[in-house]
């Protein structure tokens, strides 16, 4: 049992890491990675939603009739997303201002719904928890990695502290949406390169 728990947790961190392997949840991956704080914040919001919705759906998987499972999943996911939105608004207002519309957009981001359909509706609560946590943290790491690159080279800062030498000219292109696409493409390429070596 423990072995399986570890497996379900770690698959989200590497083998099935959401934005790079499944290429899911790209909207926040592109939009919320201009600064490291936003990337981490977005990742943790999604992790919370994933863990909660996975657990609840797994708990109720025998009650939900298969004909209406998708509406039920959406209601559950949307509820947790609104909870996250209200809580970030109340306690992390600057983060809420920075993420803006992308918090409510977690509802239509395919990761929570995908995990509910593909995993939580078929597996026990404890595995669903491990799956949600792994996927969420994998997503957080992906966003953070992209954000570190984009913030350092695009702004010359890290977590809003200047870290580059004084004559450093920020590569502003990386802060713009096309820069996000280029970074994501490079990242996917690197991941594929490493992945192909494993086989």
């Amino acid at each position, binding site marked *: 049992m423990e072995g399986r728990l570890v497996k379900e947790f770690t698959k989200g961190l590497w083998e099935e890491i959401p934005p790079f392997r499944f290429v899911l949840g790209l909207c926040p991956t592109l939009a919320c990675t201009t600064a490291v704080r936003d990337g981490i914040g977005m990742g943790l919001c999604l992790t919370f939603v994933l863990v909660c919705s996975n657990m609840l759906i797994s708990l109720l998987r025998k009650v939900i009739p298969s004909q209406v499972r998708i509406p039920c999943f959406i209601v559950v996911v949307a*509820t947790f997303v609104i909870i996250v939105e209200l809580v970030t608004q109340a306690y992390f207002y600057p983060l809420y201002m920075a993420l803006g519309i992308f918090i409510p957009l977690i509802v239509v981001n395919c990761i929570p719904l995908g995990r509910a359909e593909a995993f939580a509706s078929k597996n026990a609560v404890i595995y669903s928890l491990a799956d949600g946590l792994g996927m969420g943290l994998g997503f957080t790491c992906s966003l953070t990695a992209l954000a570190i690159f984009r913030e350092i080279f695009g702004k010359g800062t890290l977590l809003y502290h200047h870290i580059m030498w004084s004559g450093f000219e920020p590569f502003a292109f990386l802060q713009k949406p096309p820069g996000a696409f280029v970074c994501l493409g490079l990242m996917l390429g690197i991941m594929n390169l490493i992945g192909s070596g494993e086989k």
Partner: protein
Amino acid sequence: MRNILKLIVVLTAFCVGSAFSLAFVRQATKERIEYQKLKILVAPAVKAVFPSYDNDPILERIKVKLTEKEIINVFPAKKAGNLIGIAYEGIGSGHGGAVEVLIGIDLNGKILGIKIVKHGETPGIGTKATESVEFLNQFKGKGVGSKLAVGEDIEAVSGATETSAAITEAVRKAIEIFPKVKQEVG
């Protein structure tokens, strides 16, 4: 038929559960969210209208009911626990909609300072008045008993007459309700 009934019951139960939990969370975070919003929007203005204070006027805000429908936030400034003044908003109608002005008043009804919180005036024209320190400083020291009218005791910024009038109107309206607000705040 029984199957359809089951679908309806389950889906309804999900929605009811969701509605209850959301209502609960909203109720629990309502106060904090209002505080955070005021902190971003109004706190800098509160800092600007009082010379010095040592409490958190946003946290200690008092809701004052003017009429059945009109409720305003009043921000008390205290020093060593003693009330030294109150701040609240007055609204005037400018060229581009409402001009919201925060007014800091001491307990005798004398204006300590004013600051524009929100406006929709034309950049470069109306903003000549909203940004003019000289214009805004004219209000200092005036208060209950002052006429507060452009051309009489307030001199408008030339080229921004309409905005000047709107700011003056906002201050005048705020001063008019001062006795009632003071009574409520105690």
